[in-house]
């Protein structure tokens, strides 16, 4: 099994699916000749031609709008938005058309498209290059929202997203693009969209996280567990919508305590929905309030201050400790 980083794993999934299914194509700004600004689409234009690795003009709504048309015509476009901060320009097309085409046409037309994009902070990038706005998409019925956390699950989930018959927003934690390598099976692999993964079982506290925050969280858990006897159940959410509250709630029912770590701003970030669903189903099992470690409700600062505004290991640790001791 070759070791690779997340960018390579994404690139692999794209290669595999384009090889397997000639209706799959990639499109976006600089995805062709240049191979994408992060090199996620490297090599595709040489291998599959410019008609299937399309360098588009610079227009996000046009990219997604024409991807919708392609999907309607039977293609499976994988559109890259260069940074998620530019994806808000596509909300009109996605909410107004992609998410609704199946409903509107009673199944006559569907939109099996993927919108891929790097999101999140931590790479010292310019303004608009560090936001985590998964809520916009998760609050849009008709879209699925997937966030991988590792090379292996990135490859498997992207494969699943491409094969999915409905529109999928695929948000890639850019901080994790080259952060570490992992073994990725030679054999094609998919994972079910809509399932959280219990990465480590535990009985004292449930920890939910996703994307780049998952690693930070895991590190803290490792530290704490090496220091004291406590058993933490670690969940990687993987799909934001549809949300796998069954897995989370079963865990909370067992542990009675829960901490959620998200990069998104606090108000109406995914953690709010997780808490609401805990409230719906397992409130009476809670022994402490669910704790959110999240971004603040401010405009994400330029990168000089960015680190202070992202969850830190210290903040996660304190949240865990306070929740355990509540």
């Amino acid at each position, binding site marked *: 099994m070759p070791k690779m980083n997340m960018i390579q794993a994404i690139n692999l999934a794209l290669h595999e699916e384009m090889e397997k299914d000639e209706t799959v194509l990639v499109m976006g700004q600089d995805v062709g000749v240049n191979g994408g600004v992060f090199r996620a689409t490297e090599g595709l234009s040489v291998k599959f031609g410019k008609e299937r690795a399309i360098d588009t003009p610079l227009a996000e709504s046009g990219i997604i709008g024409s*991807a919708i048309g392609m*999907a309607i015509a039977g293609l499976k476009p994988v559109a890259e938005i260069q940074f998620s901060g530019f994806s808000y320009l596509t909300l009109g097309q996605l909410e107004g058309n992609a998410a609704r085409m*199946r409903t509107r*046409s009673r199944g006559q037309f569907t939109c099996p498209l993927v919108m891929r994009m790097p999101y999140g902070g931590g790479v010292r990038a310019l303004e608009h290059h560090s936001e985590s706005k998964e809520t916009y998409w998760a609050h849009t019925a008709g879209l699925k929202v997937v966030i991988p956390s590792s090379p292996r699950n990135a490859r498997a989930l992207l494969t699943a997203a491409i094969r999915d018959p409905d529109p999928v927003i695929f948000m890639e934690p850019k901080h994790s693009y080259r952060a570490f390598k992992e073994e990725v099976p030679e054999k094609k692999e998919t994972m079910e969209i809509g399932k959280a993964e219990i990465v480590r079982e535990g009985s004292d506290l449930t920890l939910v996280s996703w994307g780049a925050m998952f690693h930070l969280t895991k590190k803290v858990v490792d530290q704490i567990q090496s220091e004291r006897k406590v058993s933490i159940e670690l969940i990687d959410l993987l799909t934001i919508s549809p*949300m796998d509250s069954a897995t989370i709630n079963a865990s909370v029912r067992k542990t009675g305590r829960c901490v959620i770590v998200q990069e998104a701003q606090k108000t109406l970030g995914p953690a709010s929905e997780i808490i609401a669903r805990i409230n719906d189903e397992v409130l009476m099992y809670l022994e402490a309030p669910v704790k959110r470690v999240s971004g603040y409700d401010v405009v994400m600062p330029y990168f000089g201050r960015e680190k202070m505004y992202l969850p830190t290991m210290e903040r996660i640790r304190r949240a865990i400790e306070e929740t355990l001791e509540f």
Partner: protein
Amino acid sequence: MPLKTIGKFSLSYLQVLDDKGKLDENLEPKLSNTELNKLYRAMYLARQLDSRMLKLQRQGRLGTIPVCTGQEACVCGATFALRDSDWFVGSYRELGGRLMRGEPLINPMIYYNGYEEGSFNPVNDRTLPINIILGSQLPHAVGAAYGSRLKGEKENASLVFFGDGSTSEGDFHEAINFAAVWKLPVVFFCQNNQWAISTPRANQTHSESIAQKAISYGIDGIQIDGNDVLAVYKATKDALDRGRAGEGPTLIEAVTYRMGVHTTADDPTRYRKNAEVEEWSKKDPIKRFENYLIEKKAWSARKQKTMEDEIKAEIEQTVKDFENMTDFKPDSPFDYLFETETDDIKALRAEFLNEIGKDADNA
């Protein structure tokens, strides 16, 4: 010369049959009488259905409807140039064209009575449903044409309709730019009916014409008499042919007029003069076409009478069928959210069915 001219562009206007009934035989499209009759019938049917639906609406049996009266030459003439395998991408003011694509007469009634069932065209699966987000349909036409080409269906073109107002949206610009760069067979058909609700064409954009916007993308553009169905057919057919031949997209500005209200929620007396409406009523596309057909001996009073009776009967039968419709599955929004029902949706559907089962209001 350092201040030199580096580009020259010109813009043409096409009219085949003018409002006085004068025909330019050189430009006359070669259509058989059968074809001409079919086209005429389509325009006539649209007009009748429109006015029948307006009545239904005024009686409270339909919700808000847009009215297409006066624009039949545009939608029918352009659609007539299309093949079934081409993409028809519309907004909401193309009733006649949609019917030509095989949409059952009952569909618009179902649609304007508030049910998605009216958006499904059982006959042609390359006709996109009504799209209300203005301008957002243009990139779909572009993508669909791209899709057809990539799949090897190289002859398939797209025809996309939109209004003068919609040309102000960013998606208009982005879509045409994409189509031009990709050299796709897309015909961008603007029904310039002079108004976007209360906004007159002159306040929508400062250019002398909409057709000249084609220059911005390096593509062909033409302004045509949108009440002259022969001009509409010819311009669209030529544009489609050029597109199929790999010569890229065309922007057609069809100059026409919205004879009625914007929708039944609108009161045009607030913002436009009756005199303007009267002036345009003299240019009626159906009347003009009828005169041409009679002149050509392709039509007669007798044929007219037969057609009127047929259409009337057909529409009245449809109204009856419509009024007898009751079977709207309450939970179908759950059916069509995703191809495979997610656990979340399964649970919500059960909750929903439970609620409406209990709830007398909704039974």
